[in-house]
Every structure is written in C-alpha cells, then in structure tokens.
C-alpha cells in the first residue's frame, strides 16, 4: 500500500518536471548566446580635423549674415552712407547711386510725358517734328523742375561721395613728338594758358575799334610766340616750324609713296625751300587771271622748275609716285587694291586707264570740228571700251566694288 503511494508521488513529480522542461524550452533564448559564434566589437577612436565644408561663395561675417537689404534704402543719401559704412569704395557707391537716381528720374520724366505718349501720332500730325512735341509750356516747366530736383540730389550725393575725377589722359600733339615728354607737357600747359588769354582778350576788345582790336591781338600773339620760343632749343624750334608747314602736311598725305621718316622730313624741307624761293605768281587782277598775259607762263615756268627739282631728287618713277600719291582718286583705288589683295601697282594701272580715258574725253569734247552725233558716238565707244578694259584689269571680284566706290566718272564719259 505504501509503495503504491510512493509510485504515485514520483509519477506526479515526473509530470511536473516534464511540464517545467517544456516551459523552459518555450522561453526565448538569452541574446548573447549564439552558439558557436563570439562577436567582438573593437571600437577605435580617431581624432581628425574635419576639412572645411565646401567653401561658401561668401563668408559673410557679422551676425546675422549680411544682406544687401541692410544697406539699400529709398533715401539716396542713406543708401550712399550705408554703402560707405560697409567699406564700399566711393566710386562704386557713386556708380550705384548715379544709376539709381537717373533711373528714378527717368521714370518720373516718363510719367510726365505719358499724356503726350498717348497722343503721339496726333501731336506729330499737328507739329511735324518730335522735338516740337515739347513745345508745351506746362510740360516744359515740369521737366525743368524735375531736372533741377535731380541736380540738387546729385549735389547732395556729391557731398557724400565726392566728385568723379576723370582719368587724366596724356596730352599729345604729334607736332611736338620730337620733344622730350616733360617739354611736351610744358608746351601743352603753355598752349592752354595762351588759349585762355586769347578768350579773355576777345571779350575785352569786343567793343574796341577794329584797329585797336587787331593791334592788341597782334601784341598778344607776339608775346605768346616769344614765350613759346623760349621753351625750345634752336634745333627743336626748326623742326617744330617744319612740322607746322603746309609742305609737311603735303608729304604726310602721300599715298602709295614709300619713304622713311628722314626722307619725308627732307622732302618737306626741299618743298618748303622751293616755295620760299619760288613764290606762287599772282595775276594783276586776282579775279581775272586770264587777263594777265604773263601769269600763265609764270605758273608754267614755276611748275617746270618744281618738276625738275623733284625729278632730280626722286627720279622719274619717284616723281610719278609723288604726283600720284596726292591724287584723291588714287587713294580710293589703293584701298580697293588692298581689299582685293592686289599690289599698289594695280591701283596705279587703274588710275592710268582712268586718266587716259578722261584725257580722250576732254579732247573729244574740245574738238569743235566734230559733229555732235559723231562726238556722241565716239564718247559712247570710248566708254564701252574703257569699261571693258577696266573690268578686265580690276577682275570680276572687284568690279562691282569699283563701280560703287570709284566708278562715278564712267557714267560721265558718254554724256
């Protein structure tokens, strides 16, 4: 009996133990007990200097960060002062403010002219010219007022920002290019002072008699000339005088004529000497030169002497180039040749063709024995032949340009 009770007791205990075993098995396992794997985390600390973030375009110091609205103001003076306060250069502030003021006044002017704008065509039909649209006293007054106001603002701004100083440009007068820089400046200053003296004198003598006026002006000129002369050495003065001469101007205008600076100077001197020793003849009555029988021969003799002198100096070819170089027709032809990438000799050839044709035309017109019809026919034939020859000489590429820029004379040939 007692054995049976023990057996029952142990069976009950066993059942309880089975239940306990099942409960334990159902529980979630302990997290760190992954069987067979031991994970160790090794944390290493490194201290690094982090590079600066991508450079912002502007690193604006101050806090809160600077914004343009902090300086911008509707009041011009405040705006200007604000700009200067943050170190804006006065010239930059001036650029900003001048534009701002101009724009603002432009808008106001536009408002004033708006009534005209709506009637633009009507007013034009009435007045005819744009400028006459302003012939409106009330509008003129308003615009004047606006201008005065703008000027006041500009003066106020100038007090804050200072006046714009125009960049000084070196004063160069090529006539004095042979002088040292410092002397050129002295001459320029003297010329400026002389100009003021002349203006003052002109005001002073406005009421004087012509004789008094002339005498005073001459006295001033003489004094100024003396003052100027003092600045120059003899050599410098001689060169300056040569540069001032008409002969210098003449050689400087030569085209298609090759010469060095020394050769040109020498040529100008030769021409000046010739003109001094061979003054141009003057007819007895300047209004009727043909009435003086000696006049034309004198002119021709002088021309012959001049030609002989220049030919001796420059040679036949050089003299021809000199004569051609002062011919305005040749200037245009030279440019055309340059554009067509042809040598200057081509321009000379075209000029010769033109001169020959024009000489023939003159002869035909002067030939009184020729009947009108025959003359007209001859002129027409000459024109056709000249055009054909010229076209071949100039070439297809340049022909229309020749006609446009240098061909007016062709149209006159057959007339």
């Amino acid at each position, binding site marked *: 009996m007692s*054995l049976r009770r*023990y*057996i029952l007791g*142990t069976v009950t205990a*066993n059942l309880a133990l089975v239940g*306990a075993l099942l409960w*334990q*098995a159902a*529980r979630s*396992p*302990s997290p*760190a007990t992954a*069987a067979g*794997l031991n*994970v*160790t*985390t*090794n944390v*290493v600390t490194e201290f690094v*200097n982090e590079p600066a973030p991508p450079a*912002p*375009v502007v690193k604006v*110091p101050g*806090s809160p960060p600077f914004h343009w609205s902090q300086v*911008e103001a509707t009041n011009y003076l405040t705006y200007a002062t604000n700009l200067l306060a*943050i170190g804006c250069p006065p010239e*930059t502030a001036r650029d*900003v403010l*001048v534009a701002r003021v101009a724009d603002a*006044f*432009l808008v106001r002017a536009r408002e004033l*002219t*708006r009534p005209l*704008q709506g*009637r*633009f065509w009507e007013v034009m*039909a*009435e007045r*005819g010219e*744009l400028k006459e*649209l*302003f012939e409106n006293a009330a509008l003129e007054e308003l615009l004047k007022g606006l201008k005065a106001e703008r000027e006041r603002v500009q003066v106020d701004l100038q007090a804050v920002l200072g006046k714009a100083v125009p960049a000084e440009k070196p004063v*160069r007068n*090529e006539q004095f290019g042979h002088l040292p820089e410092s002397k050129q400046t002295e001459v320029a200053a003297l010329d400026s002072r002389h100009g003021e003296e002349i203006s003052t004198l002109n005001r002073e003598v406005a009421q004087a008699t012509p004789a008094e006026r002339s*005498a005073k002006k*001459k006295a001033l000129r*003489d004094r100024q000339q003396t003052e100027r002369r003092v600045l120059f050495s003899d050599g410098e003065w001689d060169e300056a005088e040569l540069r001032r001469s008409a002969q*210098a101007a003449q050689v400087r205008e*030569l*085209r*298609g*004529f090759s010469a060095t*600076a020394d050769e040109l100077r020498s040529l100008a001197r030769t021409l000046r000497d010739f003109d001094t020793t061979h003054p141009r003849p003057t007819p007895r009555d300047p209004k009727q030169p043909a009435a003086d029988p000696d006049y034309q021969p004198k002119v021709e003799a002088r021309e012959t002497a001049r030609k002989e002198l220049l030919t001796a100096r420059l040679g036949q070819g050089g003299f021809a180039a000199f004569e051609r170089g002062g011919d305005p027709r040749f200037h245009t032809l*030279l440019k055309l040749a*340059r554009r*067509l990438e042809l040598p200057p000799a081509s321009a000379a050839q075209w000029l010769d063709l033109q001169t020959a044709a024009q000489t023939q035309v003159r002869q035909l017109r002067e030939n009184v024995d020729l009947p009108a019809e025959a003359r007209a026919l001859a002129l027409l034939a000459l024109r056709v032949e000249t055009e054909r020859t010229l076209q071949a000489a100039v070439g297809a*590429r340049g022909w*229309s*340009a020749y006609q446009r*820029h240098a061909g007016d004379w062709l149209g006159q040939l057959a007339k």
Partner: protein
Amino acid sequence: MRAALALALSLALTGALLAMNLALFQARTAPPVAAADRKVTVTTTRLVRHPSPAPTPALQTNAPPFHWRVLESPDYAVYAANLRAVGCPERTLRDILLPDIEKLYEEREAEVTDSAADTFWETADQRDARQRQRAAKLRALELEKRALIQRLLGAEWSYAALKELRTEGFGAALVELLLGFADTSQTELMFTAHELRGADAKAYLAATEGILLDDDLTQLHALRDRFEGELARVLAPSESEELRRRLAALNGMEHLARRNGVNLTGGELREISRLRADTHDVFAMVLDLDDELYPEVLRQQGDAAFQELLRRFLGPERFADAERGKDQLFRELFQSTEKQGVAKTALVQAYEARRAAERQAQEIRADQQLSGEERALLLAALRAQTAQALARSLGPVGFSAYVKQHGQQLTNALSLPVTRPRAAAVPTQ
C-alpha cells in the same frame, strides 16, 4: 516486487527530468561567455571631427563687422557671385559691374592708343596701316569685354547705351518720347542693341576702309537683320511695328503736319509712316547703313514708290499741300498767317508769287550783262512788285503778319548780297 521496480524506475525518471530542467535553466540564465566555437572581432573607427571654425555665433558681441572687401575679388565672376550671395539685386549688380569693367577696358584701350613714339613723319599709308592695326586691337578688346559682360550678366549690355539713356538732356527726352510705348527695361535692351550693332557696323566699315566687296554687303545685311531680330525679341509684334513706324516718321516726313498746311489726322500720319517704312529700310537707316546697303538707284526707287503711295493715299489736293509743305517759303507764309484766317487759295497764290520772285531774283543776280546799278534797280522793282502781290493775296492783315515775321528774309532774298568792306589790314612784321 513489481511495485518496487516501478518505483525505482519512476525515481530514476524523476532524477533525469530534474537534471534536464536544471541544465536548461542554467543555459538560459547563464552569462554569454558561454563557450563559442568561432571568435569574430569587428573593429569600428569613430571619427571625432574637429570642424573649421564656424561663423561667429549670433549673440557674440565681438563679431567683426561686414566689410565690402569680403565681396570684392579680382575675379569678376567671384565678385558677381559674392554680390548675388548677399542678395544684391541684379540691376544693382549690373550698375556696379558695368562701370567697373568699362574702366578696366578703358585702361587697356589706353595702353593700345597711347604711344609716346614720334610718328609725325609717316606717309598716309604708314599712318593708315598703324591705325588699322590699332583699330583691330581695340576691336579685339571690345569683343573680349562683351564676352565678359555676357558671361557675368547673362546678356549683352552696353554701358555706353545705358549711360546715354540716363543722361539728362533734350536728346534723352526725345528718345524717351520716341520709345515711350515700351517699358524701361525694353528701352534699355533696344538701346543696347542699337549701340552694339551700330558699333559693329562702324567697326566693319573701318576694317574694310569703306570699300565694300559683294561679300561685305552680305555681312552687313546680316548685321542689319540681327539688329532687327534683337529688337523683335525685345518687343511684341505690335510694338515692333509701332517702332518701325515711329522711326520712319522721323525721316523725310517732317513736312507732313498741319502746321505746315497739310491737313492730317494722327491715324493718317501713322498709316503714312507705314507706307514710308514699307518703301525704306528704317533699321538700316538707324544703323547708318542705308547708303552702304542700297545703291543710290534703289534709294531713289524707294523715294519714288513712297511718293506714289502717298499721292494715292492723300489724293491730288492734299498731295499738292504735302509738296508745298516741303518748301520753307510756304511754311513761312502759312505759319505767319495761320491765325489771320487767310484762305488756302490766297495762300497758294501768295506762295507762287513769292517763289516766282525768288527765281527772278536769282536770274537778275546771275545776269552778267547787267551792271551793279542795273541789278540793284531791277531787284528793287521786283521787291515792290512782290510786296504788292503778297499784299493782294494775303490781305492787309495777313501781309502785315507775314512781313512782321519774315519781312527781313523777303528783302534779303530779293536784294544783292551784302558784301562787307574788308577791315583795314594791320601791318604785321
């Protein structure tokens, strides 16, 4: 005996279950150092960053004040970006950069143009060649400047154009009135287009020395078309048309106005301007290229076509008025007698008498057969005749008004030219 065996087995089972429970309990509650077959070590690096100094905190009282030099940079792109970053408005940015760039390029241009070399003794060819070379350098600088402005501001701008537009004065006011149908920004763009294309045209003509080959004409036509295209991009089609008509009205149409005796409404004048614009290239004119682009024959054809269209538009009577309106003599008569109620037929009569007298006076002055005294006498008679004819046509009030304003011109026109006696020459050394 069997009961004892069953008890023994049950006890053994109890023991085993106890052992299993104990083992499981220990496994669940034991620390993780439980035996592992593999060891894995993971190394992680923790970066402790030392950042660059941050901008001064808001509340710090020793914050450095903002200074303009922070914005400035020798590199215009950086300067522009800096200004934009602080919220500088685009218009202000333009007003800062353009003059600055202009000054820079003026200095660079001065380097090209200012030469201390003595170049006096040069032939015209040598001088021209030097100037062409200089012009080419200046042109290259100009194009470089334009490219810089385009890069910085995203569009072509001309400082010179804006400066001109902002200049106070009558010219600017006229332009303002002419272009007043467009808004300010459109005007700025139109001015810029005009300035730049005008400069392009001038540069082209200078480079070609004014001698234009057929290829050059094509280039210049393209330039003119570009200008028109740029204006068309700025303006709406209706505004473009308005501009075309207004520009046409400024050229050769000044006489077409009521004050010159041509009775027109505003609408009619606008329509006539269209006819003018249709027969003339107003954009070429504005660029000063019409003489280059169109031979004289074509320009004359344009004039003739306009005259014909005008004649049809106005009808014969008003067309005659328009023709008379071109003549200053008629304008003087019309304007001086406008308020006196002179009839149009009388006015036309007076004009014809005045014009005829002018022709006769010219003939008398040119007649070499006449002596000075005879000429003077004939002209005096002509003056008297003309005055009578004018008085008859205009009536006493009208004639008086005319003489009051233009009497002196009438006398001068019908007299011998006044020759001033030469001032006595002052002897000079």
